[in-house]
């Protein structure tokens, strides 16, 4: 998914200027992880703390209604963007209801 080729000398911008903002989004961080966070939407109380604390913008806050087994409907759902996640586990550590579990990555 990511283009890792470096620019050649004819393509290098003057002064090494990077013209595309936020271009690190094209880089793939899947290889950094040993464990991956998995959010349980049942247990999650939508407190937003994982989204706040994540250093890698790997927690996504999406407007997707979710009704849990007790019949309570939440407007938001939290998901993990595994291309950004480095598996640090801050989200699982800080989750007040233990809705995030760190699952070991499998060897392909």
């Amino acid at each position, binding site marked *: 998914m990511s283009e890792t080729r470096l620019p050649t000398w004819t393509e290098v911008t003057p002064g*090494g200027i990077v013209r595309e903002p936020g271009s690190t989004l094209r880089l793939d961080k899947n290889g950094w992880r040993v464990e991956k966070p998995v959010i349980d939407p049942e247990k999650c109380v939508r407190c937003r703390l994982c989204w706040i604390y994540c250093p890698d913008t790997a927690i996504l806050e999406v407007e997707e209604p979710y009704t849990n087994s007790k019949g309570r409907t939440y407007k938001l759902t939290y998901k993990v963007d595994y291309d950004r996640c480095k598996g640090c586990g801050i989200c699982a550590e800080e989750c007040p209801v233990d809705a995030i579990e760190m699952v070991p990555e499998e060897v392909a």
Partner: protein
Amino acid sequence: MSSAYELRMKNIWSLPRGELFHGGHNLCAGCTAGTIMRHLLKVAGKDTIVVNATGCVEVSTTPYPYTAWGVPWIHLAFENTAAVASGVEAAINALKLKGQLDPEKEVKVIAIGGDGGTFDIGLQALSGMMERGHNVTYIVYDNEGYMNTGIQRSGATPFGAWTTTTPVGRRIRGEWRRKKDIIGIALAHGIPYAAAANPAYPVDMVQKFEKAIQTEGPSLVHVLMACTTGWRFEPRLGIKVSKLAVETGVWINYEIEEGRLRVTTPVPKRKPVREYLKLQGRFAHLRDFEIEIIQEMVDEQVERINKMVGKQVIGPVDYGGDGKKGA
């Protein structure tokens, strides 16, 4: 508190969902610098120019030819961040005077430096910037050492901490000097706003960023950034360690607005510093009497702050149970 500031960030839900500091950067897993920079740019918005000193954040967020920043950003040497930020601010004013830039347009200039680039190498440029009174917000992310070059000590390394240049042996047992008081140095220049913030208290932190940005003239925000690599703790504990720093009184969240000091996170009962130290490998060598010395230093700092506020905002140490010292 009555103040001239207009705070948009009332609680956690006030933070906008859109990001200007993007993921995919090369900061270590669990590095809280990512959290700090994300929220800084959420507060600052897109009309911002970021001036970044060499340091962890600079090295890891811009692996050429990529950048994690969604705003204009310039990389500088350690020593001239504040000088270039001054120049950027002066250039914006000049363009406004010449009519090449809308005079109503508000362009924020934010200088970001690590503790090495601020406490040690960039101190003279910072002093000059504050002396000349440029309208620049200076953010210090303090990981208490030169972490990206291999954990060397800096002026911000606290007493007792192991680093590669303050090793633990028979003659030396970690850093033997105290941490510099950068906010004290900044206040000596008579700047209108200075604050100490912590990413474990995000609302407090973003409110300080907001105030610093809205301040006319130089402002400084000193942010604690727990470093998983250099402090030797597990990546998942970044926020927990930052929180414990406040709960034990090692770090005090306060702000100084026009000379008035206010503690923004009061701690009625402090935890013993041992709880903060025991999580970190850089303090693993400490013996009981050294922990006692650190506890006394923290007590002293808390007492000083309480005296400045005029009442007890940070409480006494609560050893729990029988009230005996020690674990």
